[in-house]
């Protein structure tokens, strides 16, 4: 079920009520109930998906125990590779089988040889890219002796399937989330209120911002050959806003929901569009995934140590794999490659760790230089987003070529009689709120704390009403397809 549906609105309070009623009993009851609720949540899409996650859970549970039991280096390596093989095998089959098959067929056709293998009608299990990475982090961390295996199957299964973050992250590390299942959660008023506040903000970002821009993005990208460069530029910017609202909104709902149950999940987005360079952007965008790749791929490859050639190789590997993780299409790989090209100069000039603090942390507004840096970084990422959004590379290149043509200097097409003007006004206010709250976990975490309560609650009420009045078209979470 999706977070912005009536099903979830009914599911959550029921689960919340029963969960805290079980608080008086043993911790195993809390964990077991979380596990059952998570399976109901996941099975709501398709009960067959449960078989896959159960298999993945059992595999890594037993591999974890075996890894812990043996000191034999070869045996440990073998067990680790079994875990990685099983998880990536499932991911590869469900997500990439048809992609590889199509490319295999196309390459034969390129050489004039037609082959007709039978494709498979494979349903992509929701969230497979997320939970396989989460479960792999468990076995890898045991292998690296950062973590001991748990014999508590219920806690482990609940950690893997924890419903707030199961289908679209954040991708949690076992070292961070699993220990929270071994401690009885106590209801904390401030945490619960914080959770509700973050859910509200997440719903606003998803429903008001992302869903409303989706309408224009779909229209522009779907008919790009009919519009001017200026309109296509707007379309690309709208998509940049849409994907941020969609994904960071979902993460906020996930993190907020977890707080209602006494769990702390990691921050997944730290205001990435206020970044001053690409390196900072990638420290702030989809943090759980980028740190996963850093820790489990980039660093084992050598990271930024070694000669320039090695650094270049490692950066490209990371970004191309990250692109490929997003989808079985060459556009995602190109998107990853483009980001690698953006990132490399900073790494090679050792300027990739220039901006580690919060932008303008001691000022109300950014300096002119910082503003220019923000615009430049946003512009570069927006160009890359065109590949991410396009159906194929050809249409992405055509899209960009129209942007960078004379028609860029014409007035963009303005959708009369739609909600665009009020949405743009709301978006400007949204950017203002995000800017004001850029030093916190999420924008409205501390908004209005120095004002009378009635004003603060009126602000929350305003957000809730905006959600109702500006509900956009129903759009699935973009990252669900991953």
């Amino acid at each position: 079920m999706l977070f912005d549906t009536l099903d979830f609105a009914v599911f959550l309070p029921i689960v919340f009520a029963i969960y805290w009623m079980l608080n008086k009993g043993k911790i195993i009851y809390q964990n077991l109930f979380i596990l059952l609720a998570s399976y109901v949540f996941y099975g709501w899409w398709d009960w067959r998906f449960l078989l896959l996650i159960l298999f993945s859970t059992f595999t890594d549970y037993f591999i974890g125990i075996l890894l812990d039991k043996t000191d034999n280096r070869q045996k440990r390596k073998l067990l680790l590779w079994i875990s990685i093989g099983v998880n990536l095998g499932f991911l590869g089959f469900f997500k990439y089988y048809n992609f590889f098959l199509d490319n295999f067929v196309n390459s034969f056709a390129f050489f004039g040889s037609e082959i007709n293998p039978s494709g498979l009608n494979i349903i992509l299990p929701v969230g497979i890219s997320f939970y396989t990475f989460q479960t792999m982090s468990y076995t890898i961390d045991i292998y690296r002796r950062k973590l001991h295996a748990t014999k508590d199957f219920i806690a482990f299964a609940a950690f893997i399937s924890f419903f707030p973050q199961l289908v679209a992250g954040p991708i949690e590390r076992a070292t961070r989330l699993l220990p929270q299942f071994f401690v009885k959660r106590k209801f904390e008023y401030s945490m619960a209120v914080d959770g509700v506040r973050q859910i509200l903000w997440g719903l606003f970002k998803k429903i008001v911002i992302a869903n409303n821009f989706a309408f224009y993005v779909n229209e522009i990208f779907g008919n790009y050959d009919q519009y001017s460069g200026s309109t296509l530029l707007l379309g690309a910017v709208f998509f940049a806003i849409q994907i941020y609202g969609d994904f960071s909104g979902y993460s906020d709902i996930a993190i907020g929901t977890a707080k209602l149950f006494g769990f702390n999940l990691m921050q997944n987005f730290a205001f990435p569009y206020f970044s001053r360079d690409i390196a900072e952007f990638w420290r702030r965008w989809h943090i759980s995934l980028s740190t996963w790749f850093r820790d489990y791929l980039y660093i084992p490859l050598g990271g930024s140590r070694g000669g320039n050639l090695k650094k270049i190789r490692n950066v490209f590997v990371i970004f191309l794999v990250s692109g490929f993780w997003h989808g079985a299409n060459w556009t995602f790989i190109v998107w990853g490659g483009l980001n690698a090209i953006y990132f490399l100069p900073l790494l090679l000039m050792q300027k990739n760790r220039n901006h580690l603090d919060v932008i303008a942390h001691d000022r109300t507004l950014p300096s002119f230089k910082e503003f220019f840096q923000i615009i430049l970084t946003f512009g570069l990422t927006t160009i890359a987003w065109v590949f991410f959004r396009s159906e194929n590379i050809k249409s992405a290149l055509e899209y960009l070529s129209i942007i960078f043509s004379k028609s860029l200097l014409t007035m963009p097409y303005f959708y009369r009689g739609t909600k665009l003007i009020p949405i743009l006004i709301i978006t400007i206010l949204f950017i203002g709120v995000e800017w004001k709250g850029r030093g916190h976990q999420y924008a409205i975490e501390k908004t209005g704390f120095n004002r009378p309560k009635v004003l603060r609650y009126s602000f929350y009420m305003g957000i809730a009403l905006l959600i109702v009045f500006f509900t956009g078209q129903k759009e699935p979470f973009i990252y669900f397809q991953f």
Partner: protein
Amino acid sequence: MKTFLLKFTGFVVVFLVIISSLIFINRWCANFKVAGENSILVVGHSHSACAINDEVIPTLINKSNPGESYLYNYLKTRKLLEQNPHINTLMIEFSNDQFSAKMNRWTWEDEFLLRNFPKYGTFSDLETIRFLNRKNPKSLTKSFSYLMQNNLKMLFLGLDYNKNNIGGFNLLEGSNVAQKIEKIEEKRKLEKDNSFPVDNLRYLEQMIDFALKREVNVYLIRSPLHHRFLDYENLDNEDSFQRLAKELSEKYEGLKFLDFGSFPIPDEGFKDLGHLNKEGAAEFSGFLSSWISSEFEKELLVEGVIQK
């Protein structure tokens, strides 16, 4: 936990009160008033919307709207008749396709429910909401937020529902009759769904009943159709359609069926096989205007079929 639940519940209650207030303000203060000289109201779907130009018929106002089934016509007509006691005649479009299976789609399928319920849902009764909830709960729930958006928009428009796209003459230009006729053979091959839209009939009867109780004269009218219309729509229901018209006329005293289905309009006067274009509408509306100004002169009609 208690404090959290109390505060959360309090927040939700205040939220619901604000939302409900907006609905009630719209429900009780909505303005459906039309100009005093309009004593004849036309409702229906796109056939009557395209056929009857109320600008050339002084005492008539056309609130037909494409894509509306009788359920939505009924909700609108009720408010129009309540707020306009000077309306003494109601003409309801009564055509073959309104008794085909497609009317079920027009009543509760996603696209139509999401388009029409936000406009009229505020004026629904509980029975109608329950009915739509049985048929399409997901879209009904989703349409609620669109309904709230519509209500807020109407607040800014002074609650004048005539500005809410509730119907009017639809001017069409050009003609593609020939292209449509070419497609008939292809369409005849499609599977027929012969199910009868009982719910559409139910709301038609509610509309007739409501009007008659207010002592409003009610006419069922079939707007001009091209002679190949039924073929194109893959409908074979002319006999049952005529029987239904007769049954309704017998059931409701005073109800008359005016069959202008064969009104002589050349192909050039049709936009497609079911809708008149500008020229066709001018011709038909001109006739209708004379007929109305002659005080519904019966001699102009022969056995319910128009005599030009």
